[in-house]
Each structure stands twice: as C-alpha cells, then as structure tokens.
C-alpha cells in the first residue's frame, strides 16, 4: 500500500531521500498546475514550485505532522503565488502604462494538436482549445484570492477546512469567497454554459 504523505515526510525527516522523491513525484504536477493558473507564466510557475519543494525539504528536520501535508504544501505555494502576483502587477503598472499587453504568451501552451491528426480531429481540437482558452481567461480574471480558492477546491479537491487554513480565513468566509467566484465564472462562461462541451453533460 502506498505510504501516506505524512509517513513519507516523516521518513524524509529520518533521512530517507527516496521518500522525498516520491513526494516530489506525487505533487509536481498538482503544484505546477496550481501555480501556473495563479501566476500565468510557466517559467515562473516552475520556479515557484521548486521553491515550495525546497522549503519543504529544508524544513524536514523540524517537521511535525500537526496538519495535513497538502495544507502545508499549498499554503506555502499560495503565499508564494500571491506575493508573486502582487509583485508582477506592481511591475506591470510601472512599465506598461501606455503599453497594453495584447499578446498572450501563454495561449497555446497547453495545445496538444498533433499534425498527423485527421481533419475532423483538428476541428475538434480547435473547438476544445477555444473553450479551454475561455476557461483559462475566466479563471484568470478572478481576484487572486477567489482564484486560489477555486483552484484549491476544484482542481486539488481539498476540503473546506484545509482551504480556509491555506487562505487564512474562516470556513464561512471561504464559502462566500467560493460563491462569489462561481458567480463571476457563471457570467464569464455563460456562452459555454449554454453550449455544453463534449466532456460534460
């Protein structure tokens, strides 16, 4: 049976390096996905994810399993992401007042079109890609705390108690945060709500 996160972390604390590699393997994609959706830049997301793992690794000697491992992991990630988003916004305000960003360098980053695909498949891919782009942009437009709440709830499937701890708010505040986020998404994604995609019914 697979060892729990806490058990792996306790093994890392005891000096077992391979357990850290297992934790890394388990959380590299969730962490990079979360950070990418938060900061909207792959390179920056990967840098931040590495920073999260390094902080976990450095803290191994003092690790006490007082909370869920994911709460700890995503709390570090969320703090780094929020700081990064605020720093970036400040920099953008400084350098590009008369230079609006028109190109979106991240668009197409997740494109999976294979050139060998048949024409109907390409068409399907384009439709899916357009939908994904719309979804990405809808998530992007959320204020960062709402965005973090949605990402942790929807994609990391953390429970309300964990997310509240990560975002340092009450569970009640989290629920209204999520409600407002879904309200905003409902408006942004209205065209897709009316036109269901292939994957959801």
């Amino acid at each position, binding site marked *: 049976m697979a060892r729990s996160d806490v058990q792996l972390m306790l093994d890392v604390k005891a*000096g077992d390096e391979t357990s*850290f590699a297992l934790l*890394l393997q388990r959380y*590299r*994609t*969730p962490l*990079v*996905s979360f950070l*990418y*959706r938060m900061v909207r830049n*792959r390179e920056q*997301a*990967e840098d931040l*994810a*590495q920073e999260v*793992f*390094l902080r976990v*690794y*450095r803290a*191994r*000697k003092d690790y006490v399993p007082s909370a869920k491992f994911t709460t700890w992991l995503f709390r570090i990630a969320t703090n780094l992401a929020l700081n990064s988003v605020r720093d970036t916004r400040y920099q953008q305000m400084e350098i590009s007042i008369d230079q609006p960003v028109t190109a979106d360098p991240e668009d197409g*980053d*997740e494109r999976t079109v294979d050139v060998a695909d048949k024409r109907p498949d390409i068409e399907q891919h384009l439709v*899916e890609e357009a*939908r*994904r782009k719309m*979804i*990405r942009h809808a*998530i992007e437009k959320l204020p960062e705390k709402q965005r973090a709440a*949605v990402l942790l*709830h*929807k*994609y990391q499937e953390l*429970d*309300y108690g964990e997310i509240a701890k990560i975002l340092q708010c009450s569970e*009640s505040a989290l*629920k*209204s945060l*999520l*409600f407002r986020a*879904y309200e905003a*998404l*409902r408006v942004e*994604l209205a065209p*897709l*709500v009316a036109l*269901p*995609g292939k*994957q*959801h*019914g």
Partner: protein
Amino acid sequence: MSCNRMEHWMLEYLDGSLSENHRREADAHLETCDICRLRVKEFRAVSGILDELPPVEPSAAFDIRMQARIAAEPKRSSFLAWLSPGPRVAFAASLLLLLVMWSANRPTDVDDYIGHPPTVEEQFRMIKDLPVLEDYDVLANFEPLGSLPPAAQADQN
C-alpha cells in the same frame, strides 16, 4: 429557509458534502425557489466546464533542475557525524589544547614568587645570571667588529 443560506450551502450542495439534514432543507428550498434552482443548475454546469481544463505538466527541465537544487542542499548528517565536529568547534578545541600545553610547559619560576617575594639579593643574582647579559659581554668584546671602518667615513663617500 432563505436564499442567503442556500447561497452559503451552494458549493457543498454541489459537492455532495452537505450533511443529510442540511441537504434535505436545501432540497425543500429548491422545490419552491426558481432563482436558487437555476443557480444550482448553472453552478453545476460551471463546475463541469472547469473540469475541461487539463493539468499542466512540468517541463523536462523541471525535474533536472529540481534534482540539482535538492542535491545542492546541505545533507542531513549521519549517525557518525558527531565524531567529526564542525570547523568552529574543531578550531575552539585546538585553541584550548594549545592553551593547556602552553601553560603546562611555561617556566614555573613566576609561580614561585607567590608566597615569598624574592629579596633584593636574590633579584640581583637573577639579573647577573641572565644569559642575555652574558651575550652582551661577548658581543661588546667581539674582535671582528673592531675591524669595521668607522661609520663617519661611509657617510662622506
């Protein structure tokens, strides 16, 4: 039940994480409230749409860089590590050892003064017997030094 309360429960209702009692209350409210019913439907659709976004895989460089950064971290010491102390501890221990050796080997005559200070006669004998004074006598009468040209002549050239 009010629509406000329904809003508060909305996400848990969709998750299926609402307690049995609360779910029944919510269901009863939805029977009578068109606005909340529509909202539940639309939120459920939004949740389904969000599922379409795939996870973002880290690049190949991510793992290589991560491994390098972890490898560069100071490693945890093994159970024998306490036998090889850190540089600062080793330096302090060496200094202490030198101090002990120096104080063990230094002349003990200083310690003799404690208790009975030397008399004038003893002090005179000590000074008379000092080797440097003997050396002074040797140097003062050293013949080869007398054959050197006087310093004043060197200055005139």
